[in-house]
């Protein structure tokens, strides 16, 4: 649906050149919810704006629904933009217009008749659960309600793509969840491809199918949300994963690591999918001469698949410990030695 083909964006400001995007190649499939995560300044906002040509790349090409954006005339581009909805961190609603009129703007721009506008806006209002607020002004709404208006406005032209620019970053956690649920509902109800940029990993965890991690204008890691969460490859990805999975070891545990010797060793056991349900630790205790103590851990769900992370200490003879480890690995469960913090 959206293809970024080796795109770069370089800004020249005076003698300085700033590389906002550095040879980014990504493919976003129809109907998926794709998240791009990165710290501020990573280039994700520029990337998002390349989809509706609010930004044009200095190099490379962007294909949206089969059209090469760079080849479109201004008129064709405006037509294309009507198939791409966009919502913003600060909502960008017209302060002088009511909720109803804000949602109606894109329809009037398309030349809809008044009656058709009315029907469409009513339908959108009920979809985003704001029918009661139709005649209020944006200033009278809460942040979550404002974003709902933004979403309704973005959906007014029946787009096939929805771009979300830090859409939940100005909202509290509870409101964030309700907006994310709404986005999921839109994705399911209309099969709209959603591209989200965010710096909040919980957004990725809650609704995305795939994710790309950006740093310094580059995509440093990409894959399904499950893979990136379970097996982050880069330090930045690990930091983001840690921010929601809380798999970073507490300080007291980190101090214990220094006391490790051959008979007391600490391991991280990663359960994914079916293995999460296995009585692994009790098997270990029964079959091997080791003592197992759970130091830290949690189980969560990623894209509907259970995912667990346990930090355990194994006490026993060195060769018993290595037999235990071999057994655990045989069960298709990943186990890693914890050597330093956050590994």
């Amino acid at each position, binding site marked *: 649906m959206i293809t970024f083909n080796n795109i770069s964006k370089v800004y020249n400001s005076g003698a300085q050149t700033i590389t906002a995007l550095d040879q980014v190649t990504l493919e976003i499939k129809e109907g998926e919810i794709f998240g791009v995560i990165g710290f501020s300044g990573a280039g994700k906002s520029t990337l998002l704006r390349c989809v509706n040509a609010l930004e044009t790349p200095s190099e490379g090409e962007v294909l949206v629904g089969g059209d090469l954006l760079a080849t479109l005339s201004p008129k064709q581009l*405006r037509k294309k*933009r009507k198939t791409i909805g966009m919502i*913003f961190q600060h909502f960008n*609603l017209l302060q002088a217009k009511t909720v109803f009129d804000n949602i109606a*703007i*894109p329809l009037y*721009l398309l030349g809809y008749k008044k009656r058709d506008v009315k029907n469409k806006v009513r339908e959108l209002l009920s979809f985003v659960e704001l029918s009661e607020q139709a005649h209020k*002004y944006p200033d*009278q709404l809460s942040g979550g309600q404002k974003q709902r208006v933004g979403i309704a*406005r973005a959906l007014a032209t029946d787009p096939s793509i929805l771009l979300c620019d830090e859409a939940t970053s100005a909202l509290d956690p509870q409101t964030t969840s309700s907006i994310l649920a709404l986005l999921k509902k839109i994705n399911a109800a209309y099969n709209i491809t959603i591209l989200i940029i965010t710096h909040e990993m919980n957004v990725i965890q809650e609704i995305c199918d795939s994710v790309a991690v950006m740093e310094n204008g580059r995509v440093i890691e990409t894959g399904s949300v499950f893979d990136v969460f379970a097996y982050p490859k880069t330090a930045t990805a690990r930091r983001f994963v840690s921010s929601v999975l809380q798999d970073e070891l507490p300080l007291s545990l980190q101090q214990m690591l220094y006391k490790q010797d051959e008979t007391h060793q600490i391991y991280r056991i990663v359960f994914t999918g079916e293995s999460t349900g296995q009585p692994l630790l009790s098997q270990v205790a029964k079959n091997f001469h080791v003592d197992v103590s759970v130091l830290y851990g949690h189980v969560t769900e990623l894209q509907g698949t259970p995912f667990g992370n346990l930090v355990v200490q194994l006490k026993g003879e060195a060769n018993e410990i290595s037999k235990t480890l071999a057994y655990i690995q045989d069960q298709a469960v990943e186990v890693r030695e914890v050597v330093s913090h956050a590994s």
Partner: protein
Amino acid sequence: MQVDWNTFYQDMLEATGQTVTMVVFSLLFSVLIGIPLGIALVVTREGHLLQNKWLFRLLSIIINIFRSVPFIILMVAIIPFTRFIVGSSIGTAAAVVPLIVYAGPYIARLVETNLLDIDPGIIEAAEAMGATPWQTIFRIMLPEAFSSLVLSVTIATVGLVGASAMAGTIGGGGLGDLAISYGYQRFETDVMIVTVILLIVFVQGLQSIGNVLSKKLRRR
């Protein structure tokens, strides 16, 4: 020497009428000139809807030139132009021309400020919706800035009331002319006081109307 108020009130009424005429006509035309100019000053700047560096600079320089000439000098300086437009360089109609030349660029600058105050995010949203530059101006920017535009026009109107008082210099008449020729040149203090009070009432009334309108339009 005291004026006879029994007959003088008619001069007063006539002068008030001249002031109103001057202000209304010059306001009408300077709004017609100033608003498009103000829009142009915003949308032609770098990175905006209809970016055009040279047009932007040209407009800006021309407006600055008019804005830097004091009204009383401007009035005299453009006499040939005034004569070309209204066929005469004296009288109320002739005073309207320099008032427009004075207030038009002033309004342009005020409108520019109002439009620049709009959150750029709103203009970006319009672009993302696929709005044409004209749709963005008329359907997004102007409605969004409308209540502050009303306040700006109010400021310009009050400025015109003040400037119109100087129009007496070229025989434009009006309250200002009355105050100068009776109150100052003939030491008729009471005429001076009455005209000043009238002008104050004028300005207060205009500002109040502007404030109420603007507040109504803001409706938040």
